[in-house]
């Protein structure tokens, strides 16, 4: 078990975004978090990365309680994320973007950087090597000097994954990586996420593209109006009556309408 979400509740003022949600993710699996818009999926991501704290409940990562630590420390612990609306460093080139992702695995401060000590140079060379390897992984080889904002939409999404991977995460959080992608791009995204998994990284993914989710995920949790609706394998979820109702509306709803 790499991540345990225990009875998480989050209230914003009087509005309850998540109510008593629990699930746990096994090491090495691809875990899907799905649900209609406003179900609380991104709120869950923001709490795992400690962008804000839950009202109550616990998040345990790798046997350690992580609620209440700083967001940048989460990256040190081995969790890194991508964003629903792409948040690259737009004026940096591809290589620099990925190297920023490696910030937490490097340590040179001002003095070492200015004096270019041997350890600093080794660190930079190593990081550049890691970045090149990740560029190959996401299909951006030889894009070193290209400014991030000049990349195509699909490339930007993949660069965000490479940047997150540069922190050497144990758990990668992907927030709607296929949003706005065409079929070919989605297919190459599927391959990419499988490759990430093959590298021993656990993946937690929020996604609306159901065919992709069903093909990709080992297990899925469904959220609806901040509550957990169901959990299981893609087959179980597809045949779950309450899930179908949440997505398509029940017959009773039709009657009311």
């Amino acid at each position, binding site marked *: 078990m790499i991540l345990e979400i225990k009875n998480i509740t989050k209230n914003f003022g009087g509005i309850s975004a998540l109510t008593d949600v629990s699930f746990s993710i096994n090491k090495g699996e691809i875990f899907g978090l799905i649900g209609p818009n406003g179900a609380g999926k991104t709120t869950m991501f923001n709490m795992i*990365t400690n*962008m804000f704290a839950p009202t109550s409940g616990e998040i345990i990562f790798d046997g350690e309680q992580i609620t209440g630590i*700083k*967001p*940048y*420390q*989460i*990256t*040190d612990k081995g969790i*890194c*994320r991508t*964003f629903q609306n792409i*948040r*690259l*460093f*737009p*004026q*940096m080139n591809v290589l*620099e973007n990925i*190297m*920023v*992702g490696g*910030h*937490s695995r*490097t340590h*040179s*401060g*001002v003095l070492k*950087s*200015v004096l*270019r000590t041997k350890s*600093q140079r080794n*660190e*930079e060379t190593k990081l550049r090597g890691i970045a090149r390897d990740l560029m190959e992984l996401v299909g951006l080889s030889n894009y070193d000097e290209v400014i991030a904002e000049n990349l195509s939409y699909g490339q930007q999404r993949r660069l965000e994954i490479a*940047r*997150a991977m540069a*922190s050497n995460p144990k758990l990668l959080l992907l927030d709607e990586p296929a949003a706005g992608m065409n079929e070919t791009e989605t297919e190459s995204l599927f391959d990419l996420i499988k490759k990430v998994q093959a590298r021993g990284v656990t993946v937690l993914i929020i996604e609306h593209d159901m065919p992709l989710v069903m093909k990709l995920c080992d297990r899925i949790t469904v959220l609806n109006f901040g509550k957990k609706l169901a959990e299981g394998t893609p087959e179980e979820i597809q045949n779950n009556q309450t899930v179908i109702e949440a997505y398509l509306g029940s017959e009773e709803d039709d009657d009311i309408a």
Partner: protein
Amino acid sequence: MLGELLNPYQLQIICFILINIILGLSIYVTLSSGQLSLGSAGFMGIGAYTSALLTINFDVPIFIGVIAGALAAGILGLIVGIPSLRLQGVYLAIATLGFGEVIRVFFVNWESVTKGAIGISGIPNIGRELFATFRDAGFDPDMIGLKNNQFVYLLVLIILLIINILLIWFFIRQNKSRVGRAFAAIKMDEKAAEAMGINITYYKVLSFTQGAVLAGFAGGLFAHVMSYISPADFAYNRAIDILIFAIFGGSEVIWGAVFGAVFMTILPEALRFISEYRYMIYGIILIILMAYRPQGIIDINVLNWFKKFKKQKGGAVHDSGDQKHN
């Protein structure tokens, strides 16, 4: 021959340019992590007064005084920087501008030490002190055909030039490192930077403090070049002047702030012949710039163009060399 070339007035202008470059660097460093600070004039004042008072009252050597001034400004920068972290953009600018005014008013009112609005005169001059050392060693500027005051200014100029080169070298290296990438990441997207494991608080305070140290350092040098300082030297219009270095030259790359400092120091001097109209020209240039080049004169594209140009020229030289060889 050298004596005819070196005009003391021009030498002095170059010294001002070199001090202004340090001030330009100070605002550039703070801006490189996305923080707009207008406290540079205040920090400059702290550096100037600290160094002036130490050298006058305690006979401290000038270079120790200047470093003490920079450190004092740095410590104050740290104290101001930490609470200011919560402020973004224009709010930080207003708060730091207010800080600068507090410092100035403090200098005006603490008369027993700072002599109030009259200011401090008779501050040891870097050039003269060095000149004295040279003379004691048996060196006479006449030997290289220079008058005494030419030699003094020349010494100051050389020292400032060395300091400038070292500082620019320092910040170019810092920019190309993990620290510089963290600054740039915070400037472009703070939330994303934090998600990448960057300790926002640390790097923001670091860049703010570096800016304060630089401004304090420039202030110390200013005091020992001018030999006279008063609170009016560190008023808010100084802060605006410094801001304009970065806005005019460009704040994306280090050379922008350097260029801005050089140009904006020369411009009023070059326009001296039209006397009071010169500030009108100054204003018009700024308005045109904001309309057509809001990022400042020097940005990354200009630098790339220069690099390409240099490469091409280098290649051409290489070719002609080959031809000669044939």
